[in-house]
């Protein structure tokens, strides 16, 4: 058995986990992150949501409230158990917390994301529809881009299974029309790998290996079509993206934008890579492995057990942040019962303790309605310490952040990134005190 010592151990390397780790590090602590691989962030579309307008009327998407603070206020009236409650006591303060968290995780100078914590923008995705969001990775298509450039070229990649240019164009023209923007859309295709079916990730790897060739084809297509704005499904690899975009915009005198992706997603890959780089930059050690158990003494967790290269490893720490996500990332699961996988913590939904309940009771008959099952998670107090069924502290040195917190339901509230950033940083700060 190998022993490792740290002050703070963060479990989970998604946006919430990395936020917590960076915040704890900033407070001068020795921090390690334990990661079992792809987090839900690896499925990111490229958008980072803070809060969608909760009172927007379905079916009337052209009317929405762009003021994020107002949206959060409305949300908390409707979902009092939402984890934003733990972050701060007013919508303005919550926004401030998210803003400073975003500045910590995505420092301005490297230009990985763009957007504004206070305002909602409309961003377009690869099926030609749009959504409300606050931040996106840079160079993603928003409604504002279309207001200034009327002549648009859609670049597709041949054989791409996850993207259909014809279907995109039809939907895109329909929805831009509804939003009152006139778009003149032309299409061109990059020959690429020449395979009949290729996924976004395969296309990304092909572009990575054939960057010059891709750039050449892109520039050529743009010049032939005389577009002001080029849009493309998100395929550019992390390392070469910025350079490709800069050269393309310069060589072809055009504005370049990508479209929000669906899984398997290239923006997700890029976000994971970015977060890993941030940990490296700050000298935070990333340990790969699945937590297999823990040691505790009374109400205090002493260490976490994992395995690395077939060797058992015990990581001792003073404080632990649980940022293992919801069902998708594997923080919680449902078999016979709902279960938090690592510590067996109590799970809640709408402030009710869950145990052996039929999942059906936590879902709606219609898929398009919110399903409480995606709100299931841990209850925590203002310091992000995990609580048990009686409101008592589960373990005095165990904190939680991100989508493992109960009440979030990021799918319907559009609060995923906001919760991850703010709760992560808050947990990272409190463990340091």
């Amino acid at each position, binding site marked *: 058995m190998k022993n490792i010592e740290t002050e703070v151990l963060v479990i989970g390397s998604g946006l919430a986990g990395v936020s917590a780790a960076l915040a704890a590090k900033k407070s001068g602590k020795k921090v390690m992150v334990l990661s079992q691989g792809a987090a839900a962030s690896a499925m990111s579309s490229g958008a980072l949501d803070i809060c969608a307008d909760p009172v927007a009327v*379905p079916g009337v998407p052209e009317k929405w409230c762009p003021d994020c603070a107002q949206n959060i206020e409305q949300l908390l009236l409707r979902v009092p158990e939402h984890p934003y409650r733990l972050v701060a006591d007013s919508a303005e303060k919550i926004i401030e917390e998210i803003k400073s968290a975003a500045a910590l995780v995505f420092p301005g100078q490297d230009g990985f994301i763009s957007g504004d914590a206070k305002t909602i923008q409309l961003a377009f995705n690869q*099926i030609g529809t749009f959504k409300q969001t606050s931040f996106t990775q840079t160079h993603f298509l928003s409604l504002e881009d279309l207001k200034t450039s009327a002549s648009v070229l859609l670049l597709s990649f041949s054989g791409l299974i996850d993207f259909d240019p014809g279907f995109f164009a039809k939907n895109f023209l329909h929805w831009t029309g509804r939003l009152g923007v006139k778009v003149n859309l032309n299409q061109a295709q990059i020959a690429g790998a020449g395979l009949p079916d290729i996924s976004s990730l395969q296309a990304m790897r092909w572009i990575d290996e054939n960057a010059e060739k891709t750039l050449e084809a892109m520039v050529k297509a743009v010049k032939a079509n005389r577009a002001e704005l080029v849009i493309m499904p998100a395929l550019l690899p992390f390392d070469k993206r910025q350079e490709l975009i800069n050269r393309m915009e310069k060589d072809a005198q055009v504005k370049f934008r990508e479209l929000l992706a669906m899984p398997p997603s290239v923006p997700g890959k890029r976000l994971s890579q970015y977060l890993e780089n941030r940990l490296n930059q700050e000298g935070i050690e990333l340990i790969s492995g699945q937590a297999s158990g823990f040691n505790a003494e009374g109400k205090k967790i002493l260490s976490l057990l994992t395995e690395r290269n077939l060797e058992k490893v015990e990581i001792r720490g003073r404080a632990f942040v649980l940022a293992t996500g919801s069902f998708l990332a594997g923080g919680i699961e449902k078999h016979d019962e709902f279960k938090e996988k690592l510590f067996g913590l109590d799970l809640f939904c709408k402030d009710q303790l869950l145990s052996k309940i039929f999942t059906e009771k936590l879902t709606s008959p219609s898929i398009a309605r919110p399903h409480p099952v995606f709100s299931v998670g841990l209850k925590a107090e203002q310091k992000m310490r995990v609580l048990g069924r009686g409101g008592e502290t589960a373990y005095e040195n165990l904190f939680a952040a991100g989508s493992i917190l109960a009440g979030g339901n990021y*799918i319907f509230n559009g609060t995923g990134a906001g919760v991850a950033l703010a709760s992560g940083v808050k947990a990272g700060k409190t463990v340091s005190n």
Partner: protein
Amino acid sequence: MSEYDVVVVGAGVNGTGIVRDLALRGLKVCLVEKSDFASGASGANTGMIHGGLRYLIYDVDTTAHSCLDSGYIQKIVPFLLFRIPFVTPIDLKVTVPFFETYFEVYDKYAKLKNGMPHTLLHKKEIQELIPNISEHVQYAVTTDEWGIDPQRLCTLNGLSAAACGADIRLHTEVVEFLKDPSGNVVGVRVRDRSGFQDLRSKIVMQATGPWIMRTSRKAGVDVKIRPGKGVHITFDRRLLNYSLIINMVDGRMGFIMPHENSTILGTTDDDYFGDPDDLRVTEDEVDYLISGAEHYLPGIRKARMVRAWVGIRPTLFAWGKNEDKLSRDHKVFDHEKIEGVKGIVSIAGGKLASYRLMSEEAADLICQKLGCSAKCQTHLIPLPGGEKIVSDKELAQEYGVPCYAVHRMIYRHGAKSVEILELTRERPELKQIVCRCEPVLAAELVWCIKNEMASTLTQLRNRTRLGTGMCQGMRCSLKAAAILARELGLSARDAEENLVAFLEKRWRGNRPVLQGSTMEQEELHQASYFLVGNLNHLLGNK
């Protein structure tokens, strides 16, 4: 107003079987269906052309019919059937001789459908066949049955009828039966997307399965059934290669069987008094099935359930019998003789396995009424694609498509696969594999849209098993929606609504089995379509 010899109502296996039979006899026929081929009981059964082994004791006629006709079905649609060897565990040693005798009797019938005679297995042999079987199973008997894709069977019958000149109208609902002054039925009033229409006919044939009491009331005739709810669960991939006959916790018989690329566990049988249009699987029904199966395959609770599905058996009415003991026999109702109402005939009850025979019986009665002397040919003329056997290897090589994809295509389309692959000569992009779970080529989707009356994603799913794998359409439904929109020239709104309707339909099957990896998949699925795609918000809830 249109004039027909016969209007058949309902495109289940009876409706399509009858309409094909009548069309082959040269009559002018029309089939009206409010939804799609096999959208009721015919599409929600275990998918077996079996001999009715369990009816042997109290219902030997059903066994005999099933076996005889199963042989015919193999001849007319050879590509669509696959052999499923069955293993029936024997719980008590003292009952071994009883089972031996029982199966000896069954062997006589099994021959009719090319089934091999039974064998008695001992523990060691059983464990070699099914390594994950429970330790307590000491003895077992094998039999042979045949599996079939019931959706394809109905579709092919419908297409065959259409090729003989029958009018097939899907998404067309009967709203009223037309009557003459003396109360005899002279046709139906139907409603489809374009509005109302009267279809006049000499005979109206009701083959509406679970809906038959409802349609009979409209027609003013009396057909009584004991509707029974049957639930199945589909597991990802094959958990075993032999079908296992099991006893449920209450002693009822059930199956765990490998079916195409998945495993099916079924079924429940409960009296159902609810709305046949609003069927839901409840989680306790799922648990009932799992609890039974667990006794034989202890690990099954951990296996990945991908969906649950439900249908209503239109069993013939009987008073005072347990659901399980109800006869699976069928009946053709001649309402002229029963109630004195002319112009209408009904069919109810029966098994998928003997559909062709039942259709023949109904068609004979209709022909007798119409004075038509043509004979039934449905057991002689192959269904579309059954004309000859084609080789997956050769086709894969010729068209440059993966062999496993061609293999699956041939399973669904038989010799028609050549015509489907021919589409890729002019449009090589149709070689794209849209659904990787199954797999399904783009060419097959285009073919189904053009030649198999598929106009919605749900219909594409029924025709091809698109999106029935473990991801439940997460990746393929967008691409399929795009193909559908392009081929039919749908507007953006229509295409997106079609997609949401498909997701909604899918949800009905996933909701009762949300656990383990299926729950993870569901979270990703909903995040993709609703959080990123924003479809629920853009289109609004209905």
